[in-house]
């Protein structure tokens, strides 16, 4: 076992044995550079397929995952390989099938539940919030819930209010669950494999807008530990903290700023619970300035949490109050221009950083 803080034994009376690998340091993971370029959706598929080959207790269920080959083609071909007993088309009953899989996980199986979109998870809110993350506690350590809920999170493209939810602000509030939000194919493959092996319920948030993103992804399976941020770009003037799709906006903004000599640390948090606040603190102590970019609403969300923790842990190092860039605090609009104005983007991030830099010049 490495530096990752976990319990000594890999067995819990409520979930039995699990087979989390010995995590290695970031530098010892297979390289991120190479020419095995695949899409984000394929990276997710590879992680699921690999884990399903390793452990027959793992199965995938969701709307259109089997015969349709996935509403977003994530599970394409999996029915052929694993058959209908393990790749299961469900009726449109999110509460029913999420709850069913929670029961199956308590019993000892390892379900992967695909929500076509996290926007549809609210009809299953009781199951995923009241049952999955609380079962271990309420049973006094007798029944666990090793399950992965995954699906698209965030604005797709003019899908308007009901279909554009970012659920991290709401769901990360609940103790008992873990939450991962990858920003690129490499991390998606490594984080999802870890999620499937984790003995606790994991909420895994993907983005429809990134499913076609391409990058080098190693063929072998590797496991990225939860609670480790990735430094996507290095700089000494300002810290940019983000996760999921806006990480790309941060990098884009940082590149623009670099042209004017403003260098940013860009931290891709990768998991929200656990949250690698140590990496954030380390960076803020270096830069004394921080902008947090969060694709969910500002009130009581992930950005407010990150900023609170920064203030609690390294207030004296700050030269300027922390700044947040969120989606605007309104329901998601349909019109193209309104939606664009609503979402975080590189321009907003760049402006936020300039404001902080100028105020502290």
């Amino acid at each position: 076992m490495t530096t990752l803080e976990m319990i000594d034994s890999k067995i819990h009376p409520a979930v039995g044995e699990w087979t989390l690998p010995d995590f290695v340091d970031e530098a010892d993971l297979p390289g991120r550079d190479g020419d095995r370029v695949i899409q984000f959706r394929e990276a997710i598929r590879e992680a699921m397929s690999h884990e399903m080959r390793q452990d027959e207790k793992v199965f995938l269920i969701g709307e259109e995952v089997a015969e349709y080959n996935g509403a977003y083609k994530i599970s394409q071909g999996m029915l052929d390989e694993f058959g209908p007993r393990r790749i299961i088309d469900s009726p449109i009953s999110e509460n029913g099938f999420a709850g069913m899989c929670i029961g199956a996980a308590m019993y000892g199986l390892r379900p992967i539940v695909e929500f076509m979109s996290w926007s549809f998870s609210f009809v299953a809110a009781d199951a995923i919030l009241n049952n999955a993350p609380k079962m271990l506690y309420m049973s006094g350590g007798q029944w666990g819930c090793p399950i992965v809920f995954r699906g698209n999170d965030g604005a797709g493209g003019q899908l308007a209010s009901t279909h554009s939810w970012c659920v991290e602000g709401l769901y990360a509030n609940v103790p008992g669950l873990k939450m991962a939000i990858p920003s690129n194919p490499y991390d998606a493959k490594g984080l999802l494999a870890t999620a499937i092996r984790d003995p606790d319920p994991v909420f895994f948030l993907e983005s429809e807008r990134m499913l076609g993103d391409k990058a080098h992804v190693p063929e072998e399976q590797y496991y990225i530990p939860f609670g480790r941020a990735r430094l996507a770009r290095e700089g000494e003037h300002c810290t940019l903290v983000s996760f999921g799709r806006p990480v790309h906006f941060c990098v884009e903004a940082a590149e623009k700023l670099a042209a004017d000599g403003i260098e940013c640390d860009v931290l891709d948090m990768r998991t929200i619970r656990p949250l690698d606040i140590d990496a954030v603190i380390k960076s803020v102590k270096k830069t004394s300035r921080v902008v947090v970019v969060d694709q969910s609403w500002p009130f009581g969300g992930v950005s407010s949490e990150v900023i609170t923790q920064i203030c609690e842990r390294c207030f004296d190092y700050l030269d300027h109050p922390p700044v947040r860039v969120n989606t605007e605090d309104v329901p998601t609009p349909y019109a193209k221009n309104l939606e664009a104005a609503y979402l975080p983007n590189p321009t907003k991030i760049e402006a936020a950083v300039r404001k902080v830099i100028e105020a502290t010049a």
Partner: protein
Amino acid sequence: MTQAPTANNRMAKAHSSAETLTEVSTETHLKWLRDMQLIREFENRTMQAYQQAKIGGFCHIYSGQEACAVGTIAATKQDDPVVTAYRDHGHALARGMSARACMAEMFGKITGCAKGKGGSMHMFDRPNWLFGGHGIVGAQTPLGAGLAFASKYENEVLKKGVHPDHKPKQKITLCYLGDGAIDQGAFHEALNLASLFDLPVIFIIENNGYSMGTAIHRHTANHENLVARGESYGIDSIKIDGLDIRHLYSEFKPFADRCRENSRPGFVDLKTYRYQGHSMSDPQKYRTKDEVEEYKNKDSIARLLNQLMEEGSMTEDSWKTMQNEIRDEVLDAVEFAESSPAPEVEAELFTDVYALPQKNLSPTAEYHHGARNPLL
């Protein structure tokens, strides 16, 4: 408080068909009587302790419904999964949980079945395959489908136990719910899934005629024909009188066996009655005292006792002895609960949140592993 049945209120008459009962031994009948009386006595002491403020929160008394849990669980094997709602003390005891662990849980003690973290509504017992005790009306129905899904998957896909010490087999899951819960969407979704996926789960509606203070004719449509709900999903559905345990068992056992064998769901409208208010804080303005009395005259414990006495398997003396033993067992449970320590804040508040606690899961809490559950 509900009285233990005496010779005076033993009015009930047997009407079970004799031939289906011949397989059931006298010992088994005596065990049923004992189990039902244990629940009755346990609930009497629960109410007492609640009134003394030793038990907090919402507390739902099972008195009157004893035959439901005892008679249906009698038709299962020890490792068949069971899941129920918040009126769960009876199911826990019928499933084999000790009165001590059950009472200590309500007293909020570390010796309770959930180390004092669940309370009255959340009874869990892993060694006895009891998956709770669930507080949200209807939420346990998809869980029940999932337990059946898993046992079927274990048997047919894995062909080996999910855990090394467990052998796969054809199981049947019992999923209990109240008549109020059949109005929930979760229930309908679970029935559809169970039928669609051929899941061996029996949804047992403990139809006590009330959803809190709302009588069944005011809370559900077509209330005289609940089996139509099950049938509409293509599920074998029966209605059973839940006050006569011998009759109940003779109807339920073959029904459950069929569901197990065919790997199909079942639906049971089990007619019963609760003697106490919905929870401990219910003034019961919605029903008459006469109605309650009418049902007490059909009391399931008195009925079985009467039958056993008529058959000569029970005497006034042996009944006294049984009652005394049970009273002692429950008093011991109360004493045990009372004298047990509360969970220590430092040791237990932050445990059992994660099976794999990690750093930075919370800005304020550090999660860790606590005492092993007393049932494990």
